[in-house]
């Protein structure tokens, strides 16, 4: 395999990483749309589409390993291949989270809606923005974008805390809401994880471009703090208005 051929395959593989990213972005958007609209057909479609994401994952991994084994790449080429091997793991997990949300859509399809979904679509939008920008950073080999993206993780985490507290309030008020509310808490958790995966991708891009492994600053959800807040809500729930009656 000549160097020209090596660079052609390397370039094709990078394009495939972006194709995989595009499919995953689409899957997140459609999964949250399906959840908001209780659209079981769309949820089934997302579950079927995950096979294609997995196929791309295998193809990219195989190409990367072949390049490593046959070409002994060095310097930035080596870092690019190493970065791609990590990025596709994050993309594959994000795709799995989109499927998890689609499965929850199917689980909740026959249940009455607990509340209008407002913060969850907002979380999805922000997590997807982070993913999109992390892939922009990869596409343009731009470490400056990669350094900025993790700063948005705070917003996603704050939304997660807010959704969590609100849903605990629903559960405290009505035991029949526990099933639906706990499913929605899982959706929020998946979206928070998606934002974390986007931060992982940014770390890989920084390594790829700058050649120095770096842990980017990210916010951490202290679950003890969240659980303590939940306890407070549970203890004072008797005095709270029924959350289901909110809104005009």
């Amino acid at each position, binding site marked *: 395999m000549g160097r020209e051929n090596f660079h052609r395959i390397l370039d094709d593989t990078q*394009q495939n990483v*972006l*194709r995989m*990213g*595009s*499919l995953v*972005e*689409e899957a*997140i*958007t*459609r999964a949250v749309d399906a959840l908001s609209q209780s659209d079981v057909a769309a949820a089934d479609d997302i579950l079927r589409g995950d096979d294609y994401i997995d196929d791309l994952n295998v193809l990219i991994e195989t190409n990367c390993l072949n390049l490593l084994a046959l070409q002994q790449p060095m310097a930035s080429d080596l870092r690019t291949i190493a970065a791609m091997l990590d990025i596709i793991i994050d993309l594959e997990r994000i795709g799995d989270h989109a499927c998890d949300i689609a499965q929850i859509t199917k689980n909740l399809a026959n249940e*009455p*809606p*607990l*509340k*209008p979904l*407002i913060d969850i679509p*907002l979380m999805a939008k922000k997590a*997807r*923005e982070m993913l*999109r920008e992390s*892939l922009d950073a990869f*596409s*343009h080999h731009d470490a400056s974008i990669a350094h900025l993206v993790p700063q948005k993780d705070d917003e996603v985490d704050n939304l997660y805390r807010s959704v969590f507290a609100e849903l605990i309030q629903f559960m405290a008020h009505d035991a029949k809401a526990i099933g639906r509310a706990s499913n929605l808490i899982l959706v929020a958790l998946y979206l928070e994880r998606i934002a974390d995966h986007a931060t992982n991708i940014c770390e890989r891009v920084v390594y790829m471009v700058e050649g120095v492994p770096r842990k980017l600053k990210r916010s951490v959800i202290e679950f003890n703090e969240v659980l303590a807040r939940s306890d407070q809500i549970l203890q004072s729930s008797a005095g709270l*208005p029924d959350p*289901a*009656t*909110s*809104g*005009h």
Partner: protein
Amino acid sequence: MRSLLLTGAMVGIAACAYSLARFGQPWEVLVLAAAVGLAVATAFALARQRPGPSDAPDSPRPYRETRDGTLEQVLTALPVGIVIVGHDGRITSFNDAAGQIFGVSPQRAKGRTLIESVRSMEMDRRLSATLRSAVGETIEFSYAGAARRRLRLTTQALADDGGGRQALAIIADLTSIRELESLRRDFVSNVSHELRTPLTSIKLMVETLAAGVEPPARDEFLQSIGRETDRMIALVRDLLDLARLESGKAVLQKSAVDIGELCREAAATSRNRAQAMSIDLECSTPETRLVIPADQEKLRQVIVNLLDNALRHTPAGGRVRLDAHATSAVVEISVQDTGTGIPSTALPHIFERFYVVDPARARSGSGTGLGLAIVKHIVEAHGGSIRVHSELGAGTTFVCTLPREGGGDIASDATAHAR
């Protein structure tokens, strides 16, 4: 159709026509025709080029400069997205409209592959297929960029300068059209539902009465039929009011209206209902007369609708307060409740027809879903404005601001003030 110029002299004309049936819009045909015409023109012009004085290295007007400058200007001016991908999969042309649709600057997109710049798997797949097979197609798809959009993509194969193949993509943003269609469907569906529900009840009760029902059940049935009929009349009246206000055909019958007195009358009308709901209804108006030129009945409708909305969303034991006061330029009417509040994300939508914050509770209230939309139109027709402040768990305040003067002449047309 396009003329071919070599060093300023016309050497031929390239033209392209395409079947209108393949495309939804005439401009798509024009765009395609222009692009294909230019491509053919290029090939033709290159074929016609022969060694001569005009091909000397110091030639003042080479063909390519003239052609490229024109093409770029045409592409930039087009209101639809145009993307041309070369045989190597890299973008050679990307106009401003495409940049707006995909949130990518043309400078950043050119020279890159489609998946690098636009990152739409669907577009990448379709344009790759067109490059391979030379067969164009038209599809509609969702694009999840910075904002979710509904796009129509038309692809077509083009010949490039070197005899290779390019792929042309024409992208139309259908997002707003699809949203309007969705609103229209929702509106028809909502109206149908609101009319069918009371009609079904009335039909059942009439059938039961026809089978023979003794008093007192008969009287209860007749009262229910009366209530359901009133509900339908209210809905139809609101729909007609809204249609007239939206079309600008509603004529305001203006006279000198004392806002304080109007508020006191509206509060008195709603007080019995508030008492039945264990809600404290307060009314605070200045002792001096607050007279503005306005349509008395329409303003009464504004206040009644706002009070009705507040009462429906305030729990027992709560408070609703109607207040009117004036500055030198405006009169403000506010309705404040201690209800459950409105989420901030829902606030921009509450004046839309049939909008409900919580669809699960949409049928539990007795409103038609048109009250706030009517309020907004009436206030704006008077040259005023309405704003809302809400806090979840604390309550909501609607404030109507109406001009004291300059609201127009008495008995003027609503449209004049709505603008």
